[in-house]
């Protein structure tokens, strides 16, 4: 756990870069420091590994005061990755990754194994890249090696300053996705600096929004979108924050569970009575084990003498449980349907998201007090 207690930074020239901020990052969480340029994100981050001395206040790691630790020792146990990467050009990828292990006097075999392991984790083939020099890598590959190097000696804590800032949007998106998966596996305690709200929402368990050296709001991305504390937050988050929160929420958070469903050979008369009873204009059609087959629409039932199979439409379009609501909404708009069945990875019907539900959800995210919204981050 990282604890910042009333941390202040006044530079020698009098610039008050950080004006007494306090927050905690719990173990295994990724905390994003977010804010406009010059608000003090980098300064705050660098005070954690004491690259910048603290003027006032204290930073504690697992309740131990960092001021009392040997600064090089402290840094060797905190991974450090920056936008400019700073790979050592005269060393191979393997030597770069082994930087901290070398400082920690690991033996050769262990270093070798670790470098291989990390390259693999980063999705790079060790055989191909181990002996390459930084100049022989693409921008994205350099960035990956930079992250691998910061993970060198498996530090429990990582500091990352816009690590994906200097690469093209498509590669950045991919690196972000990869890193989210990696973090799921390695569970580091991370402080991640960015000025990009989308990156913050995507990556963060918590977001610390800063302005002029002050901490304005510290909350989950969902809360930040749903309940901005001030006009500044609202403006910073952007007017499309509803869409952003749809990207953040999953269909399973918004669906009605276990909807009524009928089978192919059910009589249509039965179907119409269920529809009347439940006040529905449609019903999902499933087969054995509730596997989704299609649906029936009330309008399509002209004659109640047949069975479901006569009037049902197959291939309704559906969304899997983990799909984001934004993607779900896209499917609904594309197919021009107001109801989207939600299935698990085996195609078994799990629930339904309706357009009305989405609308009221969007309404909710607009209530400025926060109100109710699905908890999505934990």
């Amino acid at each position, binding site marked *: 756990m990282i604890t910042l207690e009333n941390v202040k930074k006044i530079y020698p020239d009098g610039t008050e870069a950080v004006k007494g901020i306090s927050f905690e990052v719990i173990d295994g969480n990724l905390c994003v420091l977010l804010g406009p340029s010059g608000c003090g994100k980098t300064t705050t981050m660098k005070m954690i*590994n004491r*690259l910048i001395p603290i003027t006032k206040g204290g930073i504690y790691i697992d309740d131990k005061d960092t001021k009392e630790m040997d*600064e*090089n*020792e*402290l*840094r*060797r*146990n905190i991974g*450090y990755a*920056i936008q*400019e*990467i*700073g*790979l*050592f*050009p*005269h*060393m*191979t990828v393997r030597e770069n990754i082994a*930087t*901290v292990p070398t*400082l920690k006097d690991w033996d050769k075999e262990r270093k070798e194994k670790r470098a291989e392991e990390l390259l693999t984790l980063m999705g790079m083939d060790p055989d191909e890249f181990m002996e390459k*020099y*930084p*100049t022989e890598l693409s921008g994205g590959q350099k960035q990956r090696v*930079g992250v691998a*190097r*910061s993970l*060198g000696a498996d530090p429990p804590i990582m*500091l990352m300053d816009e690590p994906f800032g200097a690469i093209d949007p498509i590669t950045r998106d991919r690196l972000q996705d990869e890193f989210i998966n990696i973090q799921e596996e390695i569970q580091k305690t991370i402080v991640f600096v960015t000025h990009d709200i989308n990156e913050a929402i995507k990556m963060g368990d918590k977001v610390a929004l800063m302005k002029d050296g002050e901490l304005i709001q510290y909350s989950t991305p969902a809360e930040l979108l749903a309940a901005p504390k001030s006009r500044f937050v609202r403006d910073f988050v952007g007017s499309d924050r509803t869409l952003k929160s749809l990207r953040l929420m999953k269909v399973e958070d918004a669906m009605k569970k276990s909807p009524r469903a009928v089978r192919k050979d059910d009589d249509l008369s039965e179907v119409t009575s269920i529809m009347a009873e439940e006040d529905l204009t449609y019903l999902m059609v499933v087969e054995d084990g509730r596997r989704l087959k299609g649906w029936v629409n009330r309008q399509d039932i002209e004659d109640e003498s047949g069975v479901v199979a006569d009037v049902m439409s197959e291939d309704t379009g559906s969304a899997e449980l983990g799909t984001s609501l934004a993607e779900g909404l896209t499917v609904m708009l594309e197919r021009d349907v107001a109801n989207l069945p939600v299935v698990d990875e085996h195609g078994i019907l799990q629930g339904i998201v309706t357009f009305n539900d989405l609308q009221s959800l969007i309404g909710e995210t607009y209530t400025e007090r926060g109100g109710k919204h699905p908890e999505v981050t934990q």
Partner: protein
Amino acid sequence: MRRRIVLITLLGIFIGVTVWITQMDTLRYMHPKTYGDLARQTWNHIKMVGIAELLAIGVGVPLGVLVTRPGLKRFATPVIGTANVGQTIPSLAVVAIMAPILGYRFESAIIALFIYSLLPVLRNSFTGINDIDPAIIESAKGMGMSRLQIATKIELPLALPVIMAGIRTSTVICVGTATLAVLIGGEGLGKIILAGLYTQIPLLILQGAAPTAALAVILDTLLGGFESWMTPRGLKKS
């Protein structure tokens, strides 16, 4: 490859000219130097350049490195500036100034050459370290390298090729300037040139100038090879 062809051609011409003149029979106005004279003066030349260059390296590298250190950085401009002035003054003037100050002797020649060779070494030592991408140093620091580790494992290896380039430039310039050093008591191929100037025999001047040029080309090539041998693969431009 093309560069190598040019160098070999040049070298062939210089050595060819030297041999051609040395082979000549004594004419009425001209007494060409013997191979023995040439060898002796070439050796003197190398000795003078070598001593001056070693001094320049001994002073220039540590001084150049020193003024990149955080506490001493404010001295960088005055130090480099002073050396710059030394280089700006024409070599003949440096030599001329040294003579009355230090007298007409071998040591004066060495000191004049040293002053003249210092700048490229000093400047490249400074920029070699100063121009390292700050992100490299920052990440080294951020990963917990000590100041000493950063200096020895990052800064010096990265600056070494640049420093070597400075030494190479300085040596080549020094070979040329050394021909002037004979004016204040130096030895070397300059003596032959000087003799040619006094007697106004162009071939004799050429007999001193051609081996000097050959020496410059040879040293440049040798040091260039050494430089590229010392450059880590990751820093080589392919």
